[in-house]
């Protein structure tokens, strides 16, 4: 415990006293209470605003945030927890200069750049070990923090960071990242309203999702929320696919519509297969089983990829149904 505090003390030492007053931040963050740790972080952010810091600052920030957000360490009052991860998202918001976003996004690429800065920030190996050892018991949030944290080890920074960030990206990283970002509640809700589209850095290294104010931040509800958002996203896609689904509201009725639609489609396949069988049978060459369609209502054009349709047209226009059998054979032959 003391080591951590000591680390943080070092943290504060490293951040030069360029910290502008917190009142500067008051406008975007009306709820931002004063806390010396938080002020450290905001000072970093303010640096970013006025003078873009190297990416190491972002790492520092995340490290600090991860420290704060780890419940197993138990050192932080729970009031701090919501605040710090939201700092993580400041670069995503309109506050910092936009060039920082690509910087943040390049967190894997510029490993060498951060290496030196982060190394000095990470302090002694004790701090490193301390951060790495606690298992990521909290699930996704912990994973993210531990991932960022473990990159503090200066030696393997380059590969580790790249590896982990690739892991973040490649695995179902969206969920993890979302849940990490969702760990904070509160102020960022308002900022989210202002900057709804800045959730994704241009290089799409990770996606942050705004958490809503006052929602629980434990890992279970985080993953639950991520899961629910995935499901609602897919429901939206389904609603676009199924005609007439936009009119109903409510997951149950949408699902009903979808179920009905699938059943209708399957029945249609059966019906059409019976029809096709009837049309193709050699008995029906003289019988016109189905009312002849007028040529104007051709449905060829609606389905684009049928090669034979234009070719069989010349067949069908010329002959009657007694040639149906040969037409069909010819059409199929031509196609294949």
């Amino acid at each position: 415990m003391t080591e951590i505090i000591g680390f943080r003390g070092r943290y504060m030492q490293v951040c030069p006293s360029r910290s502008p007053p917190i009142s500067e931040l008051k406008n975007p963050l009306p709820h931002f209470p004063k806390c010396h740790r938080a002020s450290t972080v905001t000072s970093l952010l303010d640096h970013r605003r006025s003078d873009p810091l190297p990416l190491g600052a972002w790492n520092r920030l995340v490290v600090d945030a991860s420290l704060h957000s780890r419940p197993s360490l138990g050192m932080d009052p729970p009031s701090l927890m919501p605040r710090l991860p939201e700092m993580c998202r400041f670069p995503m918001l309109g506050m910092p200069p936009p060039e920082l976003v690509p910087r943040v996004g390049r967190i894997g690429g510029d490993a060498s750049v951060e290496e030196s800065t982060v190394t000095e920030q990470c302090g002694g190996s004790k701090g490193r070990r301390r951060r790495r050892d606690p298992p990521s018991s909290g699930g996704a949030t912990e994973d993210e923090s531990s991932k960022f944290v473990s990159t503090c080890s200066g030696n393997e920074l380059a590969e580790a960071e790249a590896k982990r960030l690739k892991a973040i990206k490649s695995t179902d990283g969206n969920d993890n990242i979302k849940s990490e970002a969702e760990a904070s509640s509160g102020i960022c809700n308002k900022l989210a309203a202002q900057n709804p589209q800045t959730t994704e850095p241009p290089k799409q290294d990770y996606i942050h999702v705004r958490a809503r104010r006052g929602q629980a931040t434990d890992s279970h509800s985080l993953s639950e929320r991520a899961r629910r958002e995935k499901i609602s996203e897919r429901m939206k896609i389904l609603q676009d696919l199924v005609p007439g689904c936009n009119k109903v509201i409510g997951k149950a009725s949408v699902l009903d519509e979808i179920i009905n639609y699938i059943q209708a489609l399957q029945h249609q396949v059966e019906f059409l297969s019976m029809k096709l069988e009837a049309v193709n049978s050699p008995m029906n060459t003289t019988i016109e089983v189905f009312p002849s369609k007028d040529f104007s209502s051709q449905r060829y054009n609606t389905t684009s990829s049928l090669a034979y349709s234009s070719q069989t047209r010349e067949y069908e226009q010329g002959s009657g149904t007694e040639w149906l059998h040969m037409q069909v054979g010819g059409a199929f032959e031509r196609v294949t």
Partner: protein
Amino acid sequence: MESKSSTTGNRDNPNRNLHGSKTMMASHFLRALFRIQQTSTSSSSAGRSRRIRRAAYASMAYSAGTRRAWSRALLRKLRSRARLRFPRRLSRAATPQRRDMDQAQVLRKLVPGGPSMDDCKLLEETADYIRFLTTQVRLMQTVMDSVSS
């Protein structure tokens, strides 16, 4: 087989590009139809329609490839020569209570490969399945029209 590059007009979303699969679906289905027509001149009409239906689902699954869980399950079902089970028309009347709590279960019965998926994946596979099903139905209708007119 020449590839059709004409636009459909209703499927211009980037993640719903079915052009390649439409071509494959059409060629596979037509080939299967031709085969059925040639080989089963004397079999019963029910058997032929069953075969045509099976060919429809086969071309659907074949053009979807093995990327999708539903197409894999469908191909498995077709290859094992099991009877393809489809919702009978009477079952709709048999279940008046439509708003059952286990809509996901109903959906799982409909979509091939359903029972072995979690809800999230189920919705994804449902969307893909619907896309391919609509394409297949449209294909069959076109074949129908061109053959009968």
